């Protein structure tokens, strides 16, 4: 297990470096001068040159990348142009809110997805299967930002049950685990949970079908095992793949939260990314994307290791 884990970690290093390179290059594919956002319109040539060397934009690209990477490894992602505060602390504060949203959504989406998937796969081609597969396909085809709007229309505008936007009555600053605050989490979490619910349902349904058609299930039944026992074996066999899919989905929820956070003004990393884009705050844009991508890579690594821990066959291949 230790050998497998260390091998996986070694594999991840080139990926992390390439991710850093992509994030770095993002700023350099931007049209126009990266200083546009900070320079006043009537800035003199000297001031522009001064700032350019202060940000290091006058050096050759590979040197800039080296310096940027060196600082990034030491936790320095530069300062936000808009607020002047360190990018890393801005991002980490926002990521906390996104993680909270993603975990709440994962609890809803994964529970329903596993339940629907197992039932649909086990009772294949019955009406239960048809309902579950329809819900799943609607889930993966829904423009989630639209679903968010529709939920706001129903539960906030028409019924006035739940708040439409924000993360608490006192703004984003003070979160508490009481109903006053958690009310704000309900609609964004349900909206976020729909895609993972659909994907987990589809995956688990297909897996369950495959497993049920294998010989060992026949053997279990032949030796007289009751159906509940057979079902237990099926569940166990879906675990490694289901886990991998759920890990990936959790990563998508963390990294792809921008649309939902925009709809609900949820103060997470997605909303931060949104403001970085529209204020042309390039260090913040670069930093947020780097942190989110690294979270995604790390999560994939953890899933791989967990999968190998559950299913020893993976270690050998």
């Amino acid at each position: 297990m230790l050998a497998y884990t260390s091998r996986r970690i070694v594999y991840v290093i080139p990926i992390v470096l390439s991710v850093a390179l992509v994030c770095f290059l993002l700023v350099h594919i931007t049209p126009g001068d990266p200083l546009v956002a900070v320079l006043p319109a009537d800035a003199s040539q000297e001031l522009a040159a001064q700032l350019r060397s202060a940000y290091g934009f006058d050096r050759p690209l590979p040197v800039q990348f080296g310096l940027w990477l060196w600082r990034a490894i030491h936790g320095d992602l530069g300062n936000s142009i808009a607020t002047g505060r360190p990018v890393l602390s801005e991002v980490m504060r926002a990521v906390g809110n996104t993680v909270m949203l993603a975990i709440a959504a994962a609890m809803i989406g994964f529970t329903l997805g596993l339940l629907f998937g197992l039932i649909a796969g086990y009772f294949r081609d019955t009406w239960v299967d048809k309902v579950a597969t329809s819900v799943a396909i609607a889930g993966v085809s829904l423009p989630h930002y639209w679903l968010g709007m529709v939920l706001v229309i129903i539960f906030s505008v028409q019924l006035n049950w739940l708040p439409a936007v924000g993360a608490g009555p006192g703004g984003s600053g003070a979160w508490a685990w009481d109903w006053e605050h958690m009310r704000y989490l309900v609609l964004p979490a349900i909206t976020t949970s729909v895609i993972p619910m659909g994907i987990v349902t589809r995956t688990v349904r297909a897996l369950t079908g495959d497993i049920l058609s294998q010989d060992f299930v026949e053997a279990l039944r032949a030796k007289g095992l009751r159906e509940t026992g057979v079902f237990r074996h099926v569940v166990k066999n879906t675990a490694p793949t289901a886990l991998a899919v759920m890990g990936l989905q959790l990563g998508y929820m963390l990294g792809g939260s921008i649309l939902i956070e925009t709809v609900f003004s949820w103060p997470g990393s997605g909303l931060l990314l949104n403001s970085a884009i529209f204020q042309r705050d390039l260090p913040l844009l670069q930093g947020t994307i780097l942190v989110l991508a690294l979270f995604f890579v790390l999560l994939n690594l953890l899933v791989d290791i967990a999968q190998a821990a559950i299913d020893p066959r993976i270690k050998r291949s």
Partner: protein
Amino acid sequence: MSAMPDTALQAAPATKARGYWATVGRRIRRDKVSMACAIILVLIFASALLAPWLHLADPYQGSMIRRLRHIGTPGYPLGTDELGRDMLARLIYGGRLSLVIGILPVILAFLIGTSLGLVAGYVGGKLNTAIMRTVDVFYAFPSVLLAIAISGALGAGITNSIVSLTIVFVPQITRVAESVTTGVRNMDFVEAARASGAGPFTIMRVHMLGNVLGPIFVYATGLISVSMILAAGLSFLGLGTKPPEPEWGLMLNTLRTAIYVNPWVAALPGAMIFAVSICFNLLSDGMRSAMDIRN
């Protein structure tokens, strides 16, 4: 040619053996869900294409006195938007841009990704490693994040949104194409083509392309669903087209302010995105099971 009547032909069974694609086509035509989706899509595409000849209201002509009319108002079957423009006209005209920015990235990615995957899978070796490791890098980003990162860095605009989505989908199609090609590469008929003196280009184009295209095509059809949602999402964020252009994602964004006044009109553009997206998804599922002849 022999003058004798061909007895073998006469003895042949009355029904002609169907080819693979004819069988697949027949199976799809029998699938009610797939056919319903195909019809809905044809209607949406045709109305978008023929919009100028459908005697619709001007989608750009607003009016301050008839803003946010409800669905079913006489003269405005789907109401009016926040600037008093006819929603029916805007939804139909909106299809033109929305469908292009949703589907074009997948077509471009299909062309690029299939070529890359075919070459990587057929040539193998170092070229395969180079292509597939590059693809891996893009898999280190959640696709929404990658699309928004590229789009956000390039700046708002239709071209940039199409470019960013193409970049998001190329790695995915390349992976599928590569794995299908690797599966076909070692089959006997490829070996036979090589033995008969066909060059690598001819083998890829004549002998392999037809065998790998099916699964890649099905995958790409399913991607259109994702692409429609993402393309409209980029416009929704303000990274796609600019007002007053009718486009479903942008319309959804500008109508957000109207949800307290006329919520169901505000939700209409999203319903269009959903309809196109679910139809492509169901069609992709239908094609996949139709092509799985063993069932």
